[in-house]
């Protein structure tokens, strides 16, 4: 009897210890600065929601496969996932994500405060909410305002091109400015002899995201991904070819190794002061104001991406590639606790997280734009306002990234074709024809009719919020 009581006591003790220990939630995301908030608030989250986080970072370019392999195998390895919106449709359609609608009434994610693009296309699928926003990405034009205002440079520019040096608003102006500022080591820039080569511009050259830099031009020329009715790829249209021709011109004023550039290289070439202007994600504006990360603090201007002139007006479209949302795996050990965590990051701490140069997270709520004083890395509130206004200007004319199942493959095959043209292996038309053929093959494999229905639904939604 005594033995039995002893056993019972031990059992109850162990059970109560197990019951009292916090729930362990596994978080997966792209390694580096965007996982930092999970570390910063780990203690708060433990106190508030009784959860312990294990954070797993995987390389940026490998997030899709790492997440998908575990989801397919149904291992239940992850609870909270940072997901790029382009995977969301595929993950949700396969039933791998936990729908969040049931939690919304209990804990309001304040979706009305989120700008429509990020709210409706990056977080929802088939009318259901599958994620909360975490990072709002849109491309913007960053340039060296100190060089633009330099009298000597202004004079030389006017002499050469016959008009005043200004922030380029059209692709033609962009090419002129890029050409003008491309200098060799030993030449002068703003009165000083250059120790290294200086470039007019640069772009993201790796095959996974290069589509977006071409896409800014393509979209401003009126290009679309597919013909809605026939689902025939439209990337090799006149707009596509023209956009690639313009990009080939831009390529002349870039660093020679630009085709190897990813996010880091593109950020560094600008913030190291080796390049006049880049089109980049908003976080580069924040990081550029941080002396620990930038050699050009206080010298950066931000504007909308260039476009084309139509009837006296500039028609521009800024691509919205990447972005991050927080989703919960369908097999999560505790979806409610996981929801509380992502709600905390998406609602409670989000302003702090998007307004620090420590992360690569960018504004996505109206409230983020209404508090310029939070962006303390800028020298003053006025500079922060200029930065936010520049980002907002692009967001209003945002061109959404496709979020169909198979988007990773669509974008990468397009990227390969663009690179071939830029490296001179193929002419722009042949390269885009090759990409269009690859897209037809992908369509067939994923089911043309299913893709057509999803694409039409997407376009309907884009039109409804004025992004199409």
């Amino acid at each position, binding site marked *: 009897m005594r033995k039995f009581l002893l056993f019972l006591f031990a059992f109850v003790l162990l059970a109560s210890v197990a019951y009292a220990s916090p729930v362990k939630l596994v978080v997966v995301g792209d390694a580096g600065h965007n996982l930092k908030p999970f570390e910063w608030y780990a203690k708060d989250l433990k106190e508030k929601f009784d959860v312990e986080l294990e954070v797993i970072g995987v390389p940026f370019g490998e997030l899709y496969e790492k997440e998908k392999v575990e989801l397919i195998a149904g291992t239940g390895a992850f609870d909270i996932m940072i997901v790029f919106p382009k995977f969301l449709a595929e993950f949700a359609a396969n039933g791998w994500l936990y729908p969040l609608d049931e939690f919304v009434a209990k804990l309001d994610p304040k979706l009305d405060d989120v700008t429509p693009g990020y709210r409706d296309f990056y977080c929802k699928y088939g009318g259901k909410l599958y994620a909360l926003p975490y990072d709002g990405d849109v491309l913007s034009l960053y340039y060296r305002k100190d060089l633009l205002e330099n009298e000597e440079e202004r004079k030389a520019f006017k002499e050469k091109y016959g008009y005043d040096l200004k922030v380029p608003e059209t692709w033609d102006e962009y090419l002129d400015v890029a050409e003008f500022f491309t200098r060799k080591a030993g030449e002068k820039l703003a009165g000083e002899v250059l120790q290294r080569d200086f470039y007019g511009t640069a772009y993201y050259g790796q*095959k996974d995201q290069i589509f977006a830099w071409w896409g800014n031009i393509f979209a401003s020329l009126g290009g679309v991904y597919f013909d809605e009715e026939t689902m025939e790829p439209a990337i090799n249209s006149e707009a596509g070819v023209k956009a690639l021709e313009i990009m080939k011109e831009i390529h002349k004023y870039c660093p020679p*190794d630009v*085709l*190897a550039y990813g996010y880091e290289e593109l950020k560094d*070439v600008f913030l190291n002061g080796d390049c006049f202007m880049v089109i980049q994600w908003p976080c580069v504006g924040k990081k550029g104001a941080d002396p620990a990360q930038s050699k050009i603090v206080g010298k950066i201007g931000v504007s909308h991406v260039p476009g084309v002139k139509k009837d006296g007006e500039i028609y521009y479209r800024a691509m919205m590639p990447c972005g991050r949302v927080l989703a919960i795996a369908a097999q999560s050990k505790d979806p409610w606790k996981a929801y509380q965590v992502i709600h905390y990051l998406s609602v409670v701490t989000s302003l702090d997280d998007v307004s620090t140069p420590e992360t690569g997270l960018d504004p996505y709520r109206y409230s983020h734009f209404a508090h310029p004083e939070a962006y303390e890395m800028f020298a003053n509130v006025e500079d922060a306002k200029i930065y936010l206004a520049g980002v907002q200007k692009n967001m209003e004319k945002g061109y959404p990234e496709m979020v169909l199942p198979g988007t990773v*493959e669509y974008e990468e095959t397009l990227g*390969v074709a663009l*690179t071939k043209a830029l490296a001179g292996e193929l002419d722009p038309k042949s390269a885009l024809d090759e990409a269009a053929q690859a897209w037809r093959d992908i369509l067939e494999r994923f089911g043309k009719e299913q893709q057509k229905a999803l694409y039409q639904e997407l376009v309907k939604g884009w039109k409804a919020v004025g992004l199409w």
Partner: protein
Amino acid sequence: MGGLRKRDWWMAFLFVLPVVVILLAISIFPMVYSFYLSLCRWDIGMGGQRTFIGAGNYLRLFSDARFFNSLKNTGRVLLFGVGTQFALGLSLALLLNRSFRGRSLVVTLFLLPMMISPVVVGCIWKIIYHYQYGPLNYLLNLLGIRSVNWLGSGSISPYSIVLADIWEWTPFMVITLLAGLQAIPDDLYEAARVDGANRWQIFSGVVFPLLRPVVIIAILIRVMDAFKIFDLVVLLTMGGPGQASESVAFYNYLTGFKYFSMGYASAMSYVQLAVIVAIANVFLRSFKGRAVV
């Protein structure tokens, strides 16, 4: 088996059974299943229906320019990479096969690149190759040579991978061939010298024939390893620009784990296996026919 009694036979069977089961589960079954997959279309992006298509994936491979491009890049690593590693490795092994002060230290230093984690090797070479700030271009500039676009040019980046591979794996050749050289008895050198052979005659008539089995094995191991080159491709270029420096293993990875076309990726793996088995056979035949020791 005929000599065994029935009871002993069962006993032997029971002892062997766990090994057979493990082999079947972790080796034979995946082989058979992946071969079956190579005959199916199985894109696990949506729904994941598996359809038997016979040789369809293999036929698709033979019209896939990207696959042939990756084969060409892998061939470059085998030809220029392993070839140079062998030439350098043999030269260094011959130099180190004599006694001098600090020899052990020199041999250990030679081994360092091979001991470093491949990820670190990739990161080091990425810095070395940096166009604007890399030490390699800096040195070239000092010599009056223009900067080379190591990673951003489609025609150069495959060779940049080869160069890093040479740096990493030449020590393997050095150490293996050095071990082979040290196994050759001194008497044979002395006998050759007594017979009036000069250095070249000793090398070509005595040393190399005796070293041949080690040479063949060393090259075979490196060829099999280099055929699967993946880490340097990922770390240095991600197969880029575009697809310019993709290796077969990297393209296979993309097909299987980025595009999730499992049937096609399996077919690609089997073609790779066939190629490597054919290459290995050529080496092993030469080993069989010409072994001296």
